[in-house]
């Protein structure tokens, strides 16, 4: 039983679960702010997934000459991914604020309706 829970509660499983929760939010929620949050949740899932790649419990940070160092590549990649994620979230939020000033709604469906009426 314990082995089963260890398997289920491992980092990569939780990472994929987070990704899927984010995807569910994108499909099921009409609120634009929640959409942006859901993209953030998916990103967190991906970051967790990368960090669990080749991870061992007793691995040391790969700084200088250490024995049993962790794999440095996923960590380097994820720093980049976090930076890009922050930038993307910022741009999306700015676009949303502009949209909110113009249409006054946070709802995808209502925004589409107003967009159609403008045509």
């Amino acid at each position: 039983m314990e082995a089963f829970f260890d398997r289920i509660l491992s980092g990569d499983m939780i990472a994929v679960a987070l990704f899927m929760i984010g995807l569910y939010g994108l499909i099921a929620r009409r609120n634009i702010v929640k959409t942006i949050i859901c993209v953030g949740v998916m990103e967190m899932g991906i970051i967790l997934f990368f960090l669990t790649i080749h991870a061992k419990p007793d691995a040391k940070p790969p700084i200088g000459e250490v024995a049993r160092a962790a794999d440095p590549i996923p960590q380097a990649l994820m720093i980049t991914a976090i930076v890009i994620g922050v930038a993307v979230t910022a741009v999306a939020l700015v676009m949303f604020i502009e949209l909110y000033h113009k249409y006054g709604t946070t709802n995808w469906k209502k925004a589409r309706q107003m967009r159609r009426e403008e045509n």
Partner: protein
Amino acid sequence: MLYLLLLVPIAIGICFYIFSFKQVRILALGLQSIVFAFTLYIFLHVSGLETPLTEAIGNWGPLSIQLYCDRVVSVFLMLTAMLFLSFFTFVQRKDYFNRLFIFLFATLQSLIMLIFLSADLFNIFVAVEISTVICGILIMYKHDSRSLYDGLVYLMTNIVGMLFFLLGIGFLYRHFGTLNIYQMAAYMRDASGKDVLLPFAFIMTGVGLKCALMPVFSWLPKAHGTPGAPSIVSAVLSALYVKGGIYLFLRMRDMFAPAIEMDGFFLAMGIITGMAGWIIAVSQKDIKLILAYHTISQLGLILIGISLGGASQWGAVYHIVNHAVFKSLLFLGAGMIVDTYHTRNIYKIRGVFRTMPVVSIATMAAILGITGAPLFNGSISKYLIQSGEINRAAEIAILLINGGTILSFVKYSHIFFGNPEEPVVSSIPIIQKGVVIGLGVLCLAGGVWGTGFIRLLFGYAPNISPLSYVWKCLIWIVSLALGYILYTMVLTKWNKIHQGFSIELTFNQICASIAGLFAVLLAYGWLTAA
């Protein structure tokens, strides 16, 4: 050497942005000429080499980022530089062409080149993600509220797609321990299909979204046909930027080919995409949306060519080049027509040939190119796509797609004739006329010297027999006659077509269709993988 191509435009763009020069427009043009000359040099250098040119950035051995340039890549680089040069020439007199626009445009150019050049999966992800953000900003450049909605949908959809791509990279790295595409293709030979099925489904969902496969194409017409974007932005998105996606598809297909092969599936998807594109296009009344939906249709055709392999694949690669030329010409022409007539409704624009003869002739060359008329560039690439190992069903589908394209452009070409409702004055700078005429000549040259061009560019000798080429020309003429009759007899009587209907999904539905595409890929792969 290759990295200069990526760094120099961004660096100079930043310089232009920070230190505002008086002659910034002319300087930007000079920069573009230098970049084009440099890509020409790279093409000449690479075509003389036996093996592809590779370059590692940073001396970290296997950890460093690899750039990879073979002949096809160098042609795409040259195409990108050439089109950007003509776009920069085109916008010289426009008021929105300021230093911010130059900075965004130059950065986008570098990133498109990086998508073509990079051999590192994560690096490709970075390039696509940042260029998505830049395209989102360019779409809403004029602060039109309709473009705000379109830009937001474009940005969020593409970012969700790229997250799928990134998770796929994670699975691949865990399994193979490398990020280099060509190294991974070598490791794929020892992997079984079920091992790499999950990353395959994740990556192909992201890439399929970028090349606007049928269920997940909704973002493309929004982004490419939005009213607020300058026509130059639509041209760059539709002519060049989607080509990054389709070239990524080609490379991912080749990378996974030893382990997992789903050409039949993507052939069917290409046929569905190609058909859906023109069916929706023919019912639009917005001039830019018609062109945007035709991009989807032609992408379907390219996908068919890639999935068929062999000679068809060369046809598809040549069609990528051709489509870039005539689609940018169509969008630039449409932009000028919209500026002159102050309407985007295709039923209200009449008599373009009388008011703007030069633009009309150039646009007609592009229309002949996209419909595959004899002697124009589209005919050569479409001939090659059909010349591979093709079954009867795919052949009929290609004929139908081309027939639909002709039908839709019969409707489009009605704008040239008749009389305008109100008198219009056209004042088009000579420099813009020069650009469209140049692109129009390129459409014709790509057809007349088609085989020579293909041999020169790709080093591949196409086999075009005169007899079957004449046969294809006859088919084109028959399709044109049929299209004309069908349009005037049937479609003009059908009222619905004048209203303009569209399948416009909400953001939630787009996300659901992305998830659906992922599920279908996974299920189909599970059933067929060995």
